[in-house]
């Protein structure tokens, strides 16, 4: 087997670690740890973007990496930590399915994602085309994380993890979207988080808790 160049090896390793982090987020019960894992995911993405930028010489990937660092590694986790402290939500201990079951479903989801990404990888011309499957897997596992959670904060972290997966997918398939789109997406994510911050306080004021079982009252015959 001829070995790959070292930067591709590191990129493969980063992709595998990203997948591992999504699983870690799927099974994590402490919300503070969940946000830290999200920050770590962002950091890995930043390193991967820098490596790709160095490898392909694309200028705008450097800007992209800086944006990821500023937004996903520094600002958003800080904002979320502040929210956690002020709202006092630290635990999310009642998942929909028990941890082992969730993990097994996660494995099935990953297999499905790899199958889904197969035709796209075959057509891609980037060096990182094999990681498209991992990006789709990260997206679907984030989706699963959102479904199996009870606390609003964990759903938000799952949502942000999904954005990370989308970003990684764009990078693996096409070396990133055009800069203006990436800026727009980053702006959207930022504004979404700010809106959420306000939203959480409104929820807490009304319900005294951020548990989502308070959100099951609107039904069809209302």
């Amino acid at each position, binding site marked *: 087997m001829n070995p*790959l160049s070292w930067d591709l090896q590191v990129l493969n390793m980063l992709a595998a670690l990203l997948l591992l982090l999504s699983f870690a987020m799927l099974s994590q019960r402490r919300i503070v740890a969940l946000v830290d894992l999200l920050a770590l995911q962002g950091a890995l993405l930043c390193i991967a973007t820098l490596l790709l930028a160095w490898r392909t010489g694309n200028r705008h990937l450097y800007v992209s990496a800086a944006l990821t660092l500023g937004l996903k590694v520094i600002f958003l986790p800080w904002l979320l930590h502040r929210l956690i402290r002020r709202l006092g939500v630290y635990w999310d201990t009642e998942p929909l399915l028990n941890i082992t079951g969730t993990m097994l479903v996660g494995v099935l989801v*990953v297999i499905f994602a790899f199958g889904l990404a197969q035709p796209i990888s075959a057509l891609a011309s980037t060096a990182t085309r094999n990681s498209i*499957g991992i990006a789709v897997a990260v997206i679907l596992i984030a989706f699963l994380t959102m479904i199996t959670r009870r606390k609003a904060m964990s759903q938000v972290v799952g949502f942000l993890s999904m954005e990370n997966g989308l970003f990684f997918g764009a990078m693996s398939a096409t070396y990133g979207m055009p800069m203006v789109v990436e800026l727009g997406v980053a702006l959207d994510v930022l504004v979404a988080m700010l809106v959420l911050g306000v939203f959480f306080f409104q929820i807490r004021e009304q319900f005294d808790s951020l548990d989502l079982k308070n959100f099951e009252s609107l039904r069809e015959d209302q």
Partner: protein
Amino acid sequence: MNAFDWTMQLLGILLAIGAAPVLLGWVNKCRAWLQNKSAPSILQPYRGIRKLFHKDAVIAQNASRLFRLAPYVVFGAMVTAAAIIPSVATRLPITRAADAIALVGLLATARVFLSLAAMDVGTAFGTLGARREMMIGFLAEPALLVVIFVVSLTCATTALPIIAERLSAQSFSLNPSLAFTAVAFTMVLLAENARIPVDNPATHLELTMIHEALLLEYSARHLALMEWAAALKLFNYACIGFAVFIPWGLATSDAPLGLALSVMLLGVKLTIAGAALALIETLSAKLRVFRAPEFLATAFLFAVLGLLVRLLLGA
């Protein structure tokens, strides 16, 4: 397959049998150092085994033939496993006799006999231990098998010696699949050898025992053989780990120099591995028994992730 090879093979087996208690002693010594206690001598397990051999065996009245046979079967299985695993060389005769999946089967045989023997006398604790052991085994075995599958996929063979040769011939590269399976293998090692966080080998509280509970009814030479077999099991697992993940240094021909170098390198690897094991044990707390399946599910997950990453990324 000349006489030299067979002599080396025999020496290898004797080395394994002889060195296993030292490994156990070393792990205990490191643990004591980490916990700021004064450590027992590294040869303490030998003294324990010798003491047991001098005693008279006391066997329950309703114990069957199985109860008496089990220690020999278990010990024999471990010795055979030690012969199969390429701990110092990959070209010795018995090493080529069976592949990795047969090895897993051999380890399973030992576990089955151990559990049956514990249930044989009919005490509550024996049955308790047997059930727990089978639960751990039921979950750990698939994880171990998936680890073997991944490595077999990487090397296109299931024979451990050839796997070791091929992996050591490669230049160093970052393989995420091997990294994940290494983590999975370490977790399985902890579970199968009754180390913290799955089981406390030094516990005396019966309700928290898994492995110890299986040995409660044994005494004298039977107990000595069982304890020796447990030490040998740890040695075997460590050697499997080295063969797959750290294969450099294994002798691939039967040159005496290569063999001597390989033995020395094995000593170094075991020293470091023993210290690492002691570190893991000191830093973790023992899991409650009903959480052990979660631990093993995580190991299985790591192994399956390694498999999927290997299939997708080809690395």
